[in-house]
């Protein structure tokens, strides 16, 4: 967790390049057939329940079982490894990069992620707060709730099997909650952003500064 932050440097970075570059990797082994090309615009899943799939990026076939893989984020295909077309790839092989335009909220979150300790999802599943933590949050609000390493903080629910999730990072207050109960979280995505209580002013400063820059310059991106 960074103690100091060079606002000018970070903000200038986002001003000049207000994008995230999202790597798309093979979900599993198989033969790849691309469904998009470089420069193509792609859409993220949409609909009230995220039921409308994103743009199909590629098809991967394993043991005569073809699977279409759709974009999880919107943007433009900025790089594609077209030499892999029709080739067998290993799981995790990088296939393309999507350039995703950042919104103000995402820029703030990205900067905060550099100063918060991120507690990430161990598996793709749905998560909810452990009863004790939930009741403390309801009484005092998340930012007033401190959690410590080893504390049962969340419950992971998958196929009606509930697994207690014990916090493993530095102790601190729950500054950011990145999950919504009832909505699946992908493995490795952040669930919570935790910070030491003494760092709360720094966090607040980041939010105010980015908002001020955004408002005065009418945003970083389209």
């Amino acid at each position, binding site marked *: 967790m960074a103690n100091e932050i060079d606002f000018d440097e970070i903000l200038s970075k986002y001003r000049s390049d207000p994008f995230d570059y999202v790597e798309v990797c093979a979900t599993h*082994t198989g033969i790849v057939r691309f469904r998009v090309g470089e420069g193509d615009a792609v859409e993220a899943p949409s*609909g*009230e*329940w*995220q*039921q*409308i*799939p994103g743009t199909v990026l590629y098809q991967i076939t*394993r*043991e005569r079982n073809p699977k279409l893989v759709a974009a999880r984020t919107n943007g433009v295909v900025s790089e594609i490894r077209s030499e892999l077309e029709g080739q067998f790839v290993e799981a995790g092989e990088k296939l393309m990069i999507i350039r995703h335009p950042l919104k103000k909220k995402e820029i703030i979150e990205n900067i905060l992620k550099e100063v918060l300790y991120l507690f990430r999802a161990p*598996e*793709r*599943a*749905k998560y*909810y707060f452990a*009863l004790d933590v939930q009741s403390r949050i309801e009484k005092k609000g998340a930012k007033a709730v401190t959690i410590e390493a080893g504390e049962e903080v969340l419950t992971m*629910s*998958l*196929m*009606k*099997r*509930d*697994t*207690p999730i*014990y916090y493993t990072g530095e102790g601190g207050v729950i500054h950011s909650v990145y999950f919504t*109960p*009832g909505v*699946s979280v992908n493995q490795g995505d952040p669930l919570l952003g935790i910070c030491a209580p003494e760092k709360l002013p720094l966090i607040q400063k980041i939010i105010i500064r980015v908002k001020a820059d955004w408002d005065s310059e009418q945003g970083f991106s389209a």
Partner: protein
Amino acid sequence: MVTTMEAWESGRGGIDVTAAEVSRQRHIEDRSRRQAWAAAEVESILRYGAFVGSAIECHPVLDRAMERARMHIAAMEQAGRSVYNGTVILADRLHRSKGRFDRTWHAPAGGLWGCLLHVNTLLPQSRNLISLAVGVACCEAVREVGIAAELRWVNDVLVEGRKVAGFLIESFFSPRYREEYNLIGFGINVNNRQFPHELLDTALSLTEVLGRPLDISAFARLFLAKLSFALGLLYYEEERGLHDGDGWGEDGHRLLRCWRELSTTVGRRVIFGFDVMKVPQYEATVSGISGSGGLVMVLDDGCEKTEYSGEIRYI
């Protein structure tokens, strides 16, 4: 003095099941399964599932069977002893039983209430099917006593549209060695006939359907033998999947086949929610069950969505 009603409510007295009896029931299960499955497969599956009921505790009353399981694991570790994988804790009554989230579970005398301790030695893709396996075992046991039961995703066992059983599966990491257990809690309405007001329209017991009480210990043995097969099948299919490559081929996972044969969920109009009682989310029509047990639904806009966690109610 035990009244007629109390005797009725509790069937033939308190539950009394031993590991040896469950083992004998497994032999009966073995013979019965061979009518539809290859003998070598049945033998292998039941050998894998033989851990179920390796030790059995019967209590007249407990607060919660899951809590007792956690205490048992902790006490065994503290004493430097190993926990028997497959230990079953049964109680005639539970005082503080609970369902998922903050739901209460009514567990008076007459029901089959308990918890199975399973040392988690399954691969993640098999572990995700434990919930389905427990539902299959219970549904098969209920059918075997002559009741037309069906499964509603994930593992609700329904008779005449009302729920006769509920399951709660929680992971637990032992305090000293951090070994991971699956605590498989089960509650089956066998001879209990009285339900809290809020459950009157949705719960049902087997004795109400049959019009007579069941021998609860015999039913417990039957359920545990079925559970031996269903959990053994997870291991057997895991071995088959690893042997044949990465998956189960066109036949699919056989536990899912068993589940589909017992279920009426596919094709039904449902309302889905993570906690469907409190926060129903959307309506859809179930189009299938995915290869990993997920519920595949078609929403009203024609889009397909697969859920791996949550609950449904039929509309």
